[in-house]
């Protein structure tokens, strides 16, 4: 339960970190908040030869409103986002989602970008980024690459990041003011990993039908899942109970067969996924602002 030996370096500049990654990428790990990496080291599930601590790179500590999205830099902690008046005002869904992550003590250290880079399919932020069709920015000494969420998450704890690249920014697209949104989790205890979770963003038409729908899930597969068929089943409707029941039945089919563990069987997860679909879609629709 102690980390194995490694070489440690805490550069103060992004360029230095990228140079180290270029040289040692295959054998190196980036350390930001450490709330996923350090447990992996403690349990000896990870044993990188080198650790590059990016906490001193102050140029990566920013939260900025850009055209089309909110940009969050690689050293921004969960609590920083929770307390940010900019995020509270302009991206309240992100605040809502972040408040479901771990415990206060974890959020004081953990980073937004780190949660995305860790790519845990049971985690909150990958599901949010998938739902919003957000993007990430990967940097190396050779330049910068912008990757869409759908192409970034490639399987359980796996991403399309190359060994010499560092994730430096995550971009959460803005939600239009008239859209309704909701995030929910079903967990056995407060702060535990959720058995399933869902996020929905729904936009109404002028005559108050559902014009567009984004619905994504965590904890139901090896990847965060955006459920197009669920979305299609509610678009054009007024979200009556029959529509919700139908959407819930479709949602069941997105739970992969191997999602069985000591906490829940596949059948139970399917039942939870159906139920949470109804709840999250209903809650999101209730929050919409009717257009006049």
């Amino acid at each position, binding site marked *: 339960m*102690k980390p194995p030996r490694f070489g*440690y370096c805490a*550069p103060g500049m992004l360029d230095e970190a990228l140079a180290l990654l270029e040289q040692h990428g295959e054998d190196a790990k980036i*350390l930001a908040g*450490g*709330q996923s990496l350090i447990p992996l080291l*403690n349990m000896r599930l990870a044993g990188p030869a080198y*650790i590059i601590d990016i906490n001193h790179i102050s140029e990566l500590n920013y939260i900025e409103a850009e055209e089309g999205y909110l940009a969050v830099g690689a050293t921004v902690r969960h609590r920083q986002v929770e307390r940010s008046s900019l995020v509270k005002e302009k991206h309240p869904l992100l605040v809502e989602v972040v408040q479901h992550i771990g415990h*206060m*003590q974890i959020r004081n250290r953990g980073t937004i970008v780190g949660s995305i880079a860790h790519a845990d399919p049971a985690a909150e932020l990958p599901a949010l980024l998938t739902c919003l069709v957000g993007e990430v920015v990967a940097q190396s000494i050779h330049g910068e690459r912008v990757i869409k969420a759908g192409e970034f998450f490639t399987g359980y704890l796996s991403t399309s990041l190359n060994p010499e690249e560092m994730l430096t920014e995550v971009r959460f697209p803005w939600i239009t003011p008239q859209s309704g949104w909701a995030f929910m989790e079903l967990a056995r205890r407060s702060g535990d990993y959720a058995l399933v979770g869902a996020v929905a963003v729904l936009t109404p038409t002028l005559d108050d039908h559902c014009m567009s729908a984004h619905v994504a899930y965590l904890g139901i597969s090896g990847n965060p899942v955006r459920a197009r068929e669920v979305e299609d089943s509610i678009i054009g409707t007024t979200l009556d109970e029959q529509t919700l029941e139908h959407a819930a039945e479709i949602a069941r089919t997105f739970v992969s067969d191997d999602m069985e563990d000591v906490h829940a069987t596949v059948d139970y997860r399917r039942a939870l996924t159906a139920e949470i679909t109804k709840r999250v879609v209903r809650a999101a629709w209730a929050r919409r602002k009717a257009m006049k």
Partner: protein
Amino acid sequence: MQEQEETPTFSEESLISVTVNGHIYERNAPVRMLLSDFLRHELHLTGTHVGCEHGVCGCCTVLLNGEAVRSCLMLAVQADGMALTTIEGMAGTNSELHPIQQAFQEKHGLQCGFCTSGMIISVHAMLHENPNPTEEEIRHELSGNLCRCTGYQNIVEAVKLAAERLRAGAAFNAPKEVE
């Protein structure tokens, strides 16, 4: 924080300077040493307990620059230059208990005591941010600290009593920190 004049290099050992409960300590330690082990083994501050060592139980919670964090989920070298408060820093100078400790004692908010140092630190952080929490908020905020003895009832009672006394003006005993 180290000055970066040349290309930074990797090391396996580092000189660490931290302020703990107002005292400055300097020690050489392997970079792989966890902050929890640094406090216990190098500084002999054994009030910080180590339970699960992967961030679940909350026993090792300390204040880092005023924020509650898991000391088992940080390398000691990452705390270089920072100010920490551990359970040893909670009581007053004449050993009078902190109002939170006093409330835990009076309400029997502990049995074996293993989780207590982490509980006290987490409650300190909670009440600093939210001086008048509801029972639901208390239970939610304490969900990151596991107690296997009490069933939490008396802990919740203790937090309510501590909050009431602190609101009524009992000294918060601001952690002995130097920025």
